[in-house]
Protein backbone atom coordinates (compact mmCIF):
# COMPACT_ATOMS: atom_id res chain seq x y z
CA UNK A 1 0.00 0.00 0.00
CA UNK A 2 2.80 2.36 0.97
CA UNK A 3 4.72 1.54 -2.21
CA UNK A 4 1.57 2.10 -4.29
CA UNK A 5 1.07 5.50 -2.67
CA UNK A 6 4.67 6.42 -3.43
CA UNK A 7 4.27 5.41 -7.07
CA UNK A 8 1.02 7.37 -7.35
CA UNK A 9 2.63 10.44 -5.76
CA UNK A 10 5.60 10.22 -8.09
CA UNK A 11 3.41 9.71 -11.17
CA UNK A 12 1.16 12.64 -10.34
CA UNK A 13 4.17 14.84 -9.62
CA UNK A 14 5.74 13.91 -12.95
CA UNK A 15 2.43 14.60 -14.73
CA UNK A 16 2.19 17.99 -13.07
CA UNK A 17 5.78 18.93 -13.80
CA UNK A 18 5.48 17.76 -17.43
CA UNK A 19 2.46 19.96 -17.97
CA UNK A 20 3.88 23.03 -16.28
CA UNK A 21 7.55 22.76 -17.24
CA UNK A 22 7.16 24.17 -20.74
CA UNK A 23 6.21 27.81 -20.32
CA UNK A 24 5.43 29.50 -23.63
CA UNK A 25 7.78 32.20 -24.82
CA UNK A 26 6.93 34.79 -27.48
CA UNK A 27 8.37 34.88 -30.98
CA UNK A 28 11.45 37.11 -30.99
CA UNK A 29 12.18 39.88 -33.47
CA UNK A 30 15.72 38.58 -34.03
CA UNK A 31 14.48 35.16 -35.14
CA UNK A 32 11.78 36.72 -37.35
CA UNK A 33 14.21 39.03 -39.15
CA UNK A 34 14.61 38.05 -42.78
CA UNK A 35 18.07 37.80 -44.24
CA UNK A 36 17.78 38.93 -47.81
CA UNK A 37 19.93 36.81 -50.08
CA UNK A 38 19.92 39.24 -52.98
CA UNK A 39 20.40 42.98 -53.14
CA UNK A 40 17.16 44.86 -53.76
CA UNK A 41 16.32 48.01 -55.65
CA UNK A 42 16.58 50.89 -53.19
CA UNK A 43 13.73 53.33 -52.66
CA UNK A 44 15.48 56.62 -52.03
CA UNK A 45 13.39 57.85 -49.07
CA UNK A 46 12.69 56.81 -45.51
CA UNK A 47 9.88 54.62 -44.21
CA UNK A 48 8.09 54.13 -40.91
CA UNK A 49 6.56 50.82 -39.87
CA UNK A 50 3.41 50.04 -37.88
CA UNK A 51 1.90 46.63 -37.14
CA UNK A 52 -1.41 45.52 -35.63
CA UNK A 53 -3.29 42.25 -35.20
CA UNK A 54 -0.58 40.50 -33.17
CA UNK A 55 -1.01 38.87 -29.78
CA UNK A 56 0.89 38.84 -26.52
CA UNK A 57 2.06 35.49 -25.12
CA UNK A 58 0.87 34.32 -21.74
CA UNK A 59 3.19 31.84 -20.04
CA UNK A 60 0.41 29.26 -19.73
CA UNK A 61 -0.85 29.71 -23.29
CA UNK A 62 0.73 29.15 -26.69
CA UNK A 63 3.62 31.14 -28.14
CA UNK A 64 2.35 34.18 -30.05
CA UNK A 65 3.66 36.95 -32.31
CA UNK A 66 3.29 40.42 -30.80
CA UNK A 67 2.85 43.65 -32.77
CA UNK A 68 6.08 45.03 -31.30
CA UNK A 69 8.22 42.01 -32.15
CA UNK A 70 6.88 41.70 -35.70
CA UNK A 71 7.28 45.44 -36.33
CA UNK A 72 10.86 45.32 -35.06
CA UNK A 73 11.64 42.32 -37.27
CA UNK A 74 10.12 44.17 -40.23
CA UNK A 75 12.23 47.27 -39.49
CA UNK A 76 15.43 45.24 -39.06
CA UNK A 77 14.72 43.24 -42.24
CA UNK A 78 14.15 46.42 -44.28
CA UNK A 79 17.37 47.92 -42.92
CA UNK A 80 19.33 44.75 -43.71
CA UNK A 81 17.92 44.59 -47.24
CA UNK A 82 18.64 48.25 -47.97
CA UNK A 83 15.18 48.57 -49.53
CA UNK A 84 14.57 52.07 -48.14
CA UNK A 85 17.15 54.75 -47.45
CA UNK A 86 16.30 54.68 -43.75
CA UNK A 87 13.74 53.32 -41.28
CA UNK A 88 12.41 56.19 -39.16
CA UNK A 89 10.31 55.90 -36.02
CA UNK A 90 7.72 58.37 -37.41
CA UNK A 91 7.25 61.24 -39.88
CA UNK A 92 8.79 59.33 -42.77
CA UNK A 93 7.98 59.86 -46.47
CA UNK A 94 6.46 56.38 -46.69
CA UNK A 95 4.43 54.48 -44.13
CA UNK A 96 4.30 50.69 -44.20
CA UNK A 97 1.53 49.06 -42.19
CA UNK A 98 1.14 45.35 -41.59
CA UNK A 99 -2.02 43.74 -40.26
CA UNK A 100 -1.45 40.21 -38.93
CA UNK A 101 -4.72 38.74 -40.14
CA UNK A 102 -4.10 35.08 -39.48
CA UNK A 103 -1.77 32.95 -37.39
CA UNK A 104 -3.08 29.40 -37.68
CA UNK A 105 -1.38 27.22 -35.07
CA UNK A 106 -1.84 23.51 -34.39
CA UNK A 107 -2.87 22.45 -30.89
CA UNK A 108 -0.89 19.19 -30.90
CA UNK A 109 1.53 17.27 -33.07
CA UNK A 110 5.11 16.29 -33.72
CA UNK A 111 5.79 18.47 -36.75
CA UNK A 112 4.11 21.79 -36.02
CA UNK A 113 3.08 23.92 -39.00
CA UNK A 114 2.09 27.55 -38.51
CA UNK A 115 0.27 29.30 -41.35
CA UNK A 116 0.35 33.06 -41.35
CA UNK A 117 -1.20 35.86 -43.39
CA UNK A 118 -0.29 39.54 -43.24
CA UNK A 119 -1.91 42.40 -45.16
CA UNK A 120 0.66 45.06 -46.04
CA UNK A 121 -0.06 48.61 -47.19
CA UNK A 122 2.49 51.19 -48.29
CA UNK A 123 1.30 54.79 -48.26
CA UNK A 124 2.99 57.96 -49.52
CA UNK A 125 2.49 60.24 -46.53
CA UNK A 126 3.00 63.40 -48.63
CA UNK A 127 0.18 62.72 -51.08
CA UNK A 128 -1.80 60.27 -48.94
CA UNK A 129 -1.85 57.83 -51.85
CA UNK A 130 -1.82 54.08 -51.27
CA UNK A 131 1.07 52.92 -53.45
CA UNK A 132 0.99 49.21 -52.76
CA UNK A 133 -1.17 46.72 -50.94
CA UNK A 134 -0.67 42.98 -50.73
CA UNK A 135 -1.91 40.06 -48.68
CA UNK A 136 1.00 37.68 -48.12
CA UNK A 137 0.61 34.10 -46.90
CA UNK A 138 3.47 32.04 -45.51
CA UNK A 139 4.02 28.90 -43.49
CA UNK A 140 6.75 27.07 -41.62
CA UNK A 141 6.99 23.58 -40.18
CA UNK A 142 9.12 23.02 -37.08
CA UNK A 143 10.10 19.37 -36.69
CA UNK A 144 11.04 17.48 -33.53
CA UNK A 145 14.68 17.59 -34.62
CA UNK A 146 14.64 21.38 -34.18
CA UNK A 147 13.29 21.28 -30.63
CA UNK A 148 11.98 18.48 -28.44
CA UNK A 149 9.68 20.63 -26.31
CA UNK A 150 6.42 21.43 -28.12
CA UNK A 151 6.27 24.96 -26.71
CA UNK A 152 9.65 25.74 -28.24
CA UNK A 153 8.72 24.02 -31.51
CA UNK A 154 5.63 26.20 -31.80
CA UNK A 155 7.72 29.34 -31.22
CA UNK A 156 10.16 28.24 -33.94
CA UNK A 157 7.22 27.61 -36.32
CA UNK A 158 5.83 31.09 -35.55
CA UNK A 159 9.20 32.69 -36.14
CA UNK A 160 9.79 30.76 -39.37
CA UNK A 161 6.39 31.70 -40.80
CA UNK A 162 6.93 35.36 -39.88
CA UNK A 163 10.45 35.41 -41.34
CA UNK A 164 9.20 33.90 -44.61
CA UNK A 165 6.34 36.42 -44.70
CA UNK A 166 8.69 39.39 -44.26
CA UNK A 167 11.04 37.95 -46.87
CA UNK A 168 8.18 37.79 -49.39
CA UNK A 169 7.03 41.33 -48.51
CA UNK A 170 10.50 42.76 -49.11
CA UNK A 171 10.84 40.88 -52.41
CA UNK A 172 7.45 42.24 -53.54
CA UNK A 173 8.25 45.83 -52.50
CA UNK A 174 11.63 45.59 -54.24
CA UNK A 175 9.82 45.42 -57.59
CA UNK A 176 8.10 48.79 -56.98
CA UNK A 177 9.31 51.83 -58.89
CA UNK A 178 8.81 54.82 -56.61
Amino acid at each position, binding site marked *: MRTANRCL*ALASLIAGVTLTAGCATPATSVAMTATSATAVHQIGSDVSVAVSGGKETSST*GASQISDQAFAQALRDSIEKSGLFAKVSPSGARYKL*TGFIGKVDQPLLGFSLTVKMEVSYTLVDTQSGTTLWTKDIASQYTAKTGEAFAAVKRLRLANEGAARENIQQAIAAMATLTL
Partner: protein
Amino acid sequence: MKRVLRIGMLLPIVMLSACATNNATRAPDANLSKLKTFYVVRLPEDGRGIEKLIAARLTALGYQSASGDATKPAAPVDGIVTYQDRWMWDLTMYMIKLDIQIRDGTSGAILAKGEVMRPSLQRKSPEGMVEETLGVIFK
Protein backbone atom coordinates in the same frame (compact mmCIF):
# COMPACT_ATOMS: atom_id res chain seq x y z
CA MET B 1 4.17 12.19 0.91
CA LYS B 2 0.51 13.18 1.02
CA ARG B 3 1.44 16.79 0.28
CA VAL B 4 3.44 15.78 -2.80
CA LEU B 5 0.49 13.67 -3.95
CA ARG B 6 -1.93 16.59 -3.54
CA ILE B 7 0.33 19.09 -5.33
CA GLY B 8 1.04 16.62 -8.11
CA MET B 9 -2.65 15.93 -8.67
CA LEU B 10 -3.62 19.59 -8.46
CA LEU B 11 -1.17 20.84 -11.09
CA PRO B 12 -2.72 19.03 -14.09
CA ILE B 13 -6.22 20.05 -12.98
CA VAL B 14 -5.14 23.70 -12.82
CA MET B 15 -3.47 23.44 -16.22
CA LEU B 16 -6.37 21.73 -17.99
CA SER B 17 -9.13 23.99 -16.72
CA ALA B 18 -8.05 27.13 -18.59
CA CYS B 19 -10.46 30.00 -19.10
CA ALA B 20 -12.46 30.65 -22.23
CA THR B 21 -11.23 33.59 -24.31
CA ASN B 22 -12.53 35.59 -27.23
CA ASN B 23 -11.11 38.53 -29.13
CA ALA B 24 -11.32 40.33 -32.45
CA THR B 25 -9.12 42.79 -34.31
CA ARG B 26 -9.74 45.00 -37.33
CA ALA B 27 -7.23 46.19 -39.89
CA PRO B 28 -6.54 49.94 -39.75
CA ASP B 29 -9.27 51.84 -41.65
CA ALA B 30 -11.40 48.69 -42.10
CA ASN B 31 -15.10 49.54 -42.22
CA LEU B 32 -17.24 46.45 -41.74
CA SER B 33 -20.51 48.40 -41.83
CA LYS B 34 -20.11 48.72 -45.61
CA LEU B 35 -20.27 44.95 -46.05
CA LYS B 36 -23.73 43.61 -46.86
CA THR B 37 -23.11 40.44 -48.87
CA PHE B 38 -20.82 37.55 -47.89
CA TYR B 39 -19.50 34.30 -49.27
CA VAL B 40 -18.13 31.69 -46.83
CA VAL B 41 -15.38 29.46 -48.25
CA ARG B 42 -15.50 25.91 -46.93
CA LEU B 43 -12.22 24.85 -45.35
CA PRO B 44 -11.11 21.79 -47.40
CA GLU B 45 -10.47 19.76 -44.20
CA ASP B 46 -13.88 20.60 -42.73
CA GLY B 47 -16.34 17.74 -42.98
CA ARG B 48 -18.73 19.11 -40.37
CA GLY B 49 -20.32 21.89 -42.40
CA ILE B 50 -19.05 24.80 -40.31
CA GLU B 51 -19.23 27.02 -43.42
CA LYS B 52 -22.99 26.52 -43.50
CA LEU B 53 -23.29 27.48 -39.82
CA ILE B 54 -21.33 30.68 -40.47
CA ALA B 55 -23.45 31.56 -43.51
CA ALA B 56 -26.64 30.83 -41.55
CA ARG B 57 -25.51 33.04 -38.67
CA LEU B 58 -24.62 35.88 -41.07
CA THR B 59 -28.10 35.58 -42.59
CA ALA B 60 -29.62 35.68 -39.11
CA LEU B 61 -27.64 38.88 -38.47
CA GLY B 62 -29.31 40.46 -41.50
CA TYR B 63 -26.62 39.98 -44.14
CA GLN B 64 -26.98 38.25 -47.48
CA SER B 65 -24.73 35.21 -47.41
CA ALA B 66 -23.88 32.00 -49.24
CA SER B 67 -21.25 29.30 -48.82
CA GLY B 68 -19.41 26.83 -51.00
CA ASP B 69 -16.24 24.94 -51.88
CA ALA B 70 -14.94 27.42 -54.45
CA THR B 71 -12.36 29.88 -53.16
CA LYS B 72 -14.10 32.71 -55.03
CA PRO B 73 -17.85 33.30 -55.26
CA ALA B 74 -19.70 32.98 -58.56
CA ALA B 75 -21.12 36.49 -58.19
CA PRO B 76 -19.29 39.49 -56.67
CA VAL B 77 -19.70 39.95 -52.89
CA ASP B 78 -18.62 42.60 -50.40
CA GLY B 79 -16.85 40.18 -48.08
CA ILE B 80 -15.32 36.70 -48.20
CA VAL B 81 -15.25 34.68 -44.99
CA THR B 82 -12.61 32.07 -44.14
CA TYR B 83 -12.23 30.07 -40.93
CA GLN B 84 -10.20 27.43 -39.09
CA ASP B 85 -11.86 25.12 -36.56
CA ARG B 86 -9.94 23.04 -34.01
CA TRP B 87 -11.43 20.05 -32.22
CA MET B 88 -10.46 18.06 -29.13
CA TRP B 89 -11.75 14.93 -27.46
CA ASP B 90 -12.89 14.86 -23.85
CA LEU B 91 -15.56 12.15 -23.48
CA THR B 92 -16.99 13.52 -26.73
CA MET B 93 -15.51 15.60 -29.53
CA TYR B 94 -15.94 19.33 -29.08
CA MET B 95 -14.77 22.46 -30.88
CA ILE B 96 -12.04 23.99 -28.74
CA LYS B 97 -11.13 26.91 -31.05
CA LEU B 98 -12.65 28.80 -33.94
CA ASP B 99 -10.90 31.50 -35.97
CA ILE B 100 -12.82 33.54 -38.55
CA GLN B 101 -11.40 36.06 -41.02
CA ILE B 102 -13.48 38.62 -42.90
CA ARG B 103 -11.82 39.52 -46.21
CA ASP B 104 -12.36 42.17 -48.82
CA GLY B 105 -14.56 40.72 -51.56
CA THR B 106 -12.32 42.04 -54.32
CA SER B 107 -8.74 41.91 -53.08
CA GLY B 108 -9.08 39.09 -50.53
CA ALA B 109 -7.15 41.16 -47.95
CA ILE B 110 -8.11 40.43 -44.35
CA LEU B 111 -10.21 43.26 -42.91
CA ALA B 112 -10.99 41.73 -39.53
CA LYS B 113 -10.46 38.54 -37.57
CA GLY B 114 -11.97 36.98 -34.50
CA GLU B 115 -11.20 33.96 -32.40
CA VAL B 116 -12.90 32.06 -29.62
CA MET B 117 -11.23 29.41 -27.50
CA ARG B 118 -13.31 27.32 -25.13
CA PRO B 119 -11.75 24.42 -23.22
CA SER B 120 -13.76 21.34 -22.31
CA LEU B 121 -15.42 22.66 -19.17
CA GLN B 122 -16.67 25.79 -20.99
CA ARG B 123 -17.49 24.07 -24.26
CA LYS B 124 -20.22 25.32 -26.58
CA SER B 125 -21.93 23.77 -29.57
CA PRO B 126 -20.48 24.61 -33.02
CA GLU B 127 -23.46 26.97 -33.51
CA GLY B 128 -22.60 28.68 -30.22
CA MET B 129 -18.93 29.02 -31.21
CA VAL B 130 -19.90 30.56 -34.57
CA GLU B 131 -22.34 32.95 -32.89
CA GLU B 132 -19.76 34.07 -30.33
CA THR B 133 -16.97 34.54 -32.89
CA LEU B 134 -19.09 36.57 -35.33
CA GLY B 135 -20.44 38.47 -32.32
CA VAL B 136 -16.99 39.73 -31.30
CA ILE B 137 -16.05 40.57 -34.90
CA PHE B 138 -19.16 42.66 -35.63
CA LYS B 139 -19.46 44.16 -32.12
